[in-house]
Structures are given as structure tokens and as C-alpha cells.
């Protein structure tokens, strides 16, 4: 990961995986990745890292007793849904 192209990919990595880079720069990155397995692995595993955090958090909700105490503290008991 000490090559100039690898470093320039790193700098644009977030924008690349979010799809907010200009098309021409995207094509340059994809050309580079076709020749650089390390960068391809970094891009793929970075995407997966973000996906895993998002996926595991989506189904996390607060415990029922925490919700109940919150509504009590806010004097909103009557609006607490079962």
C-alpha cells in the first residue's frame, strides 16, 4: 500500500463507496483495482464493515423496562404503547 495510486484511492475511498465521486475518477479507481488486489480487498471489506454495523444495529431497540422508565420520567405513561 505504498504506491501513489493506492494512496490516492485511500484518500477518495469514502466518496467512492458512497458513489459521490465523478464518473471519470471512479473509472480510474476501477482500472487501478483491476491491477491491485490489495486495494480491491480494502474496498470490498470496507463496504462489508459498514454493512455489518448498519445491519446489526437496525434491529437493536431499547429494552422494554428502559422504555417504561423513560415514559414514566417524562410523565407520558398514558401514551406508552404495549
Amino acid at each position: 500500500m505504498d504506491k501513489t495510486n493506492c494512496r490516492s484511492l485511500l484518500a477518495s475511498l469514502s466518496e467512492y463507496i458512497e458513489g459521490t465521486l465523478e464518473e471519470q475518477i471512479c473509472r480510474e479507481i476501477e482500472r487501478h483495482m483491476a491491477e491491485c488486489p490489495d486495494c480491491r480487498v480494502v474496498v470490498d471489506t470496507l463496504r462489508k464493515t459498514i454493512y455489518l454495523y448498519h445491519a446489526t444495529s437496525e434491529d437493536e431497540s431499547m429494552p422494554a423496562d428502559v422504555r417504561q422508565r423513560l415514559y414514566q420520567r417524562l410523565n407520558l405513561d398514558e401514551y406508552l404503547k404495549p
Partner: protein
Amino acid sequence: MNDTKPAFSLDRLRAGDREEFARLVETYSDQIYRLALKMLASPQDAEDVLQNTFLKALQALPTFEGRSSLSTWLYRIAVNEALMVLRRQRPEVQIADDDDSAGDDITPAYFIDWCCLPEEELLSAESRAYLDQAIQQLPEKYRIVFILRDIEGLSIRETSEALNLSETAVKTRLLRARLKLRDLLSAYYGERLEEKA
């Protein structure tokens, strides 16, 4: 956190309408609790942050001007509450704009392709526990940006508003957080791959 959320009547909220406030609590309490838990790794502290966030919101709503969205405003209150908890433990904690250009090396250290691991392995109870452990290894100023942008799905602009940071600082910290977590997960899942080999 915005597209699919119901609209709220600011007039009713400012006037102290309890039903509308209850709807606000119902809509955003899970996200606020999750943010606090990931930031603090303590269910008790997360519950305190959750309660204090909505108590402070209730007090401040009459003067809420609506310059940012309600969700961003709630996140800002929650972040400040979480920082207060962290500073009680370590007074030096801060997330304000500073020089992000130097310091942590972001060069990746692992080049193992673990994407091929089956979903049940990637999302096992043990893996989930490691995901929580890994995020705690990030410095607070990177962790909070990752939580807001990549877990809660705020835009770069909303994240910068919630944290009172420039968009440039948010982008720099987000990249560092993502790369650090990728390295940590690569080391962890790399071992799982070796066990299978």
C-alpha cells in the same frame, strides 16, 4: 433517520402538546438509546443519556427555532449528554474541531478478503460482540462520527450540524473510523477464515 419519519407539528410541540411530544419520543427514543449505548458501552449511562436528552428537549422546545431538523437537534442534545458522561470519567475528552491532518496512520494493515465468510458467521452472537468491542477501540471523536453517519444514517451535513464540526472534519474522521474498524474486523474475521482452512 429522516426520510421515513413522520412529520411533526412544531407549533404543537412548542405549545407543550403532550401527545405530539409522546409521538416524538416514540419515533426517536430507540435511535437515541442506541447512540448512547454505542458511545458509552454502559446500559445505565445510556439510559441516563436517553432520559436527559428528552427532558432537555422538553424544556428547550418552546424556543426551538427549527434551523436544523428535529432529529439532528435531538442528536446534538444526546451527543452533548454522552460527552458529559465521558468527561466525568476522563475530563480531557473532546470532539471539537482540531487538527485532523496529522496523527493516526490510516494505511491499511490487513489485506485478507473475509467477505466470503457466510452471513451466519459474520453475524453470529460472538461476531456481534466483537463489533461492539471494536467500535469501543476508536477514539471518541471518530466513534461518534461513525455512529451518526454509518449506523444512524445521517448525511455528512446532518452529522456536521449535530456535532458542530465542519463537513471536512466529518469526512476526515469518518474515513479514519471506517479504515480502523475495517482493520480490526479484518484481523478478527481473518482468524475465523484460518480456523476454517
